[in-house]
């Protein structure tokens, strides 16, 4: 069932957004979308619209905060940045993701080896 452009895994989008904000600092929605597209080299099929409810969710949890500012091309844009608790959350989620990934790798590796 190989698909060139995978659906975004439930819950993964949060982690991706947090990581993006950590790497690049305050960014507007468009910037985040572009960045995700670049990094994933178009492997991820992302309806850019779905980004916004996700951003709202992260903000409601207090992991990111938003502020209106002016973009590079002199337009009004809403900038999102990582909060302290967002940083903690990112750390925790990264860890758990790595554990999960390691587990999956081991599991799948063994199955292939058998």
């Amino acid at each position: 069932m190989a698909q060139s452009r995978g659906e975004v895994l439930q819950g993964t989008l949060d982690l991706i957004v947090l990581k993006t904000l950590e790497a690049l600092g305050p960014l507007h929605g468009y910037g985040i979308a572009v960045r995700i597209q670049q990094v994933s080299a178009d492997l991820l099929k992302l309806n850019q619209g779905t980004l916004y409810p996700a951003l709202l969710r992260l903000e409601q949890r207090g992991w990111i905060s938003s502020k209106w500012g002016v973009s590079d091309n002199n337009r009004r844009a809403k900038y999102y940045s990582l909060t302290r608790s967002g940083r903690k959350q990112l750390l925790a989620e990264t860890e758990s993701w790595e554990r999960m990934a390691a587990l999956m790798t081991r599991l799948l590796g063994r199955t292939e080896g058998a």
Partner: protein
Amino acid sequence: MFKLRIFVSRLAGLFRRRTLDADLDAELHAHLDALTAENMRRGMSPQEARYAARREFGGFEQTKELYRERHGLPFLETFLQDVRFGARMLARNPGFTAVAIMTLALGIGANTAIFSVVQAVLLRSLPFKDPARLVRVNESVAKGGRSPVAYPNYLDWRAQNRVFDEMAAFGDCEMILSGKDKADRVLCEQVSDTYFPLLGVTATLGRTFSPEENAVPMKDAVALIGFGLWQRRFGADPQIVGEHIRLNDYEYTVVGVLPKGFRGYTDAAEVWIPMMMRDAAWPQVAKYDFLHTRDIHFHKVLARLKPGVSIAMAQMQMETIAAQLAKAYPKENRERGILVTPATEDYVRSFRSPLLVLLGAVAFVLLIACANVTNLILTRSAARERELAIRLALGAGRGRLIRQFLTESLLLTFGGALAGIALAFWGLDLLVSVLPMSFPSFAHVRLDEGVLTFACALAAGTALLLTVFPVLNSARADVSASLKESVKSSLSLRGRQTGRFLIVSEVALALILMIGAGLMLQSLAHLLADSPGFRPDHLVTLRFYVPDRKYEADGRNRFGPELAEKIAQFPGVDSAAATFIDPFLWGGFQRGFTVEGHAPISNAEADTVYYQEIGPDYFHTMGTPILRGRDFSTRDSLSASGVVLVSESFARRYWPGQDAIGKRLKYGPADSKGPWMQVIGVAGNIKYNSLRQDPEAEPVIYGALLQSEVVINMNLVIRTRNSPESMLSPLREEIQRIDPAIPVYNVATLSERMSKDSAETRSYGLLLTLFAALALLLAAVGIYGIMSYWVSQRTRELGIRLSFGARPADLHRLVMGEGVRLALAGIAAGATGAVLLTRSMTSLLFGVKPFEPSLFAALAAGLTAVVILACYIPARRATRVDPMVALRYE
């Protein structure tokens, strides 16, 4: 806490929705613009660039909707929508709304008021330390009766048990606190030193009793006084500790003052003395060595359960101990068991069943109110059928409709609850004044948060109940049929079944309430009609102390009878006599005795009966016949040989078929050293404790005041020629004139006493009748409503019947028949329910059985008449249907 933060943020979103929407719009447009610009940079035409951007972005409006769902509280929003809509619907039908809210207010208000009494009396805990672990320990006798405790048994229990932290013994009596200028009647508790620590009470001033003071009889004459008495009688004197007071002519040193509000376990005490001073408190029985005698059962015993020990566990261990004691003392303790009961029971026992019966009654009233409101809602929802069908057709979910119904019911019931709480608030004082019960002093009836919580829970439950039928009916709603204009929305089969069910339940509930009320009223009638054994008219009673002074020879004994003789000469007085009981307040004390040549009926039930001391002419004054023998005379004095009279029931029990005159008995057990007393007369049975008592079951020995060992205070009973009320003050004044040092109290006419005694039955009867009348009224209105609605819904059918030749009388019969059939079904159900439920009223009844077929039948007939009346108007309307109009109808 994420949940809270999210909730707050969402709640905020609810109120900032417009700003947020505008913000989001700007943000999303900025995003699209950026995408478009990027696409154009890649060389697309502006239009192509825009389309591509849109594609990449996905559904623009969907995103907004998703976003909105996240930033508000959709549940709360629809709820608010429902509330707004519901309120509009209710406001559009002010008549419906007013009737529904009023009906519910009556039901909920009555429940709230009764519950506030239940909470104050049955649910509030006792004002002692850790009341849940406080228990009463009694001896038990054969046939499950309980008896006070013999002191040696108490000591053995205390020494041997492993289930109680501590035990305490106490007793109580009336005492006279005499002083320089006046005497006060006070209630006194004689207590073991463990009593106060057990209840968790320490003295406000001074100390409580020490173990040494609980060791040797009559050694330490010390006393504690209550806070109220300290303030009232001693002007809150801070130097009171160490002062002396006189109680029943015996001097005590005050060692402490107890805290404000503490009134002892009896909830009435103002003075406490050590258990060892009991002989001074009860001089009548002083010659019996209660410390070492196992067959004088006199004491009350309290205990505190060890943590983790249940009452059942305590009962089990104490039974073992009781069995050992029965083996060790076969003569005194044979068949004597033990009974451990929660202390709370002592306070609520007499209130529990009347209050629960009242609570049940108001619950029924509420159910009938619900039935009426349900019918109102159904009637209206039939009119709204099309609205509902349209909403269903437009895609509203059933769940959404149910929520709408529930919201409307909630609005109605909370309107009703608010009005009901207001009703309860205004009616509570009235209710408490109607309830004659002397509640424990710590029970305050009021609308507090507990009662309000109850009212809210009740309203919520009511709302649910009101939603059931509309939801069931709507589940069947036929969308397409309702939408077709030509079809007249006729009453669905299910709607009719609901109406039938409502009528049957209303009739059944009303009948149960009517039977309950009827039983109470019949009890009251019996109580008032049953002869008390004396002529209560023209009788005055008053209580007084024999002044505390030096008397010559038997002067103290003669004091009361001589005062009676003087009063008998007073104008307007026929005769007067002395007795030491206070009729219907204190019926004398229980006295053990032995009948000559008569083995005790059983060891376990020592022969103990009520003992009353009277002066000459008592029976003549009371209007009670002396059936055999003679009355006491002035010659039956201390110097003469001992004589007694007995009641008819006593003679019947101990000397059945024989002449009691000349028989002998003595006080105390068979081996007591007391002298034999000869029976000189048998008097008719008298009720002296309460109108409810069965004098046949409570025989009396009458001793002569002139031969009494102890004389402290007593009553005069006075038969007047004029109205007894008008004699109250002249008599009081006359006694003051004869001897100003005589303190007189408890002045009343006998009929007043008796009416107070029957007051409880009267007010339970009154309240139940009130609730039954309310139920009947609600049921009648409800049945009228349901039947009227049917007739109006069946106009078309009735018209068809008429045009096919039915006569108006047939239609009349059709409607009435339906009503009567349902009434009969309801009566059958109600009678069955009543048979099951009135059993719980047994303790409230007097002279009637819970199942009284004649009463059942009479009330059922009355109720049927009411139902017929309620159906009559709708039936008349049915006969007036004009077939032409009916067929053109709609």
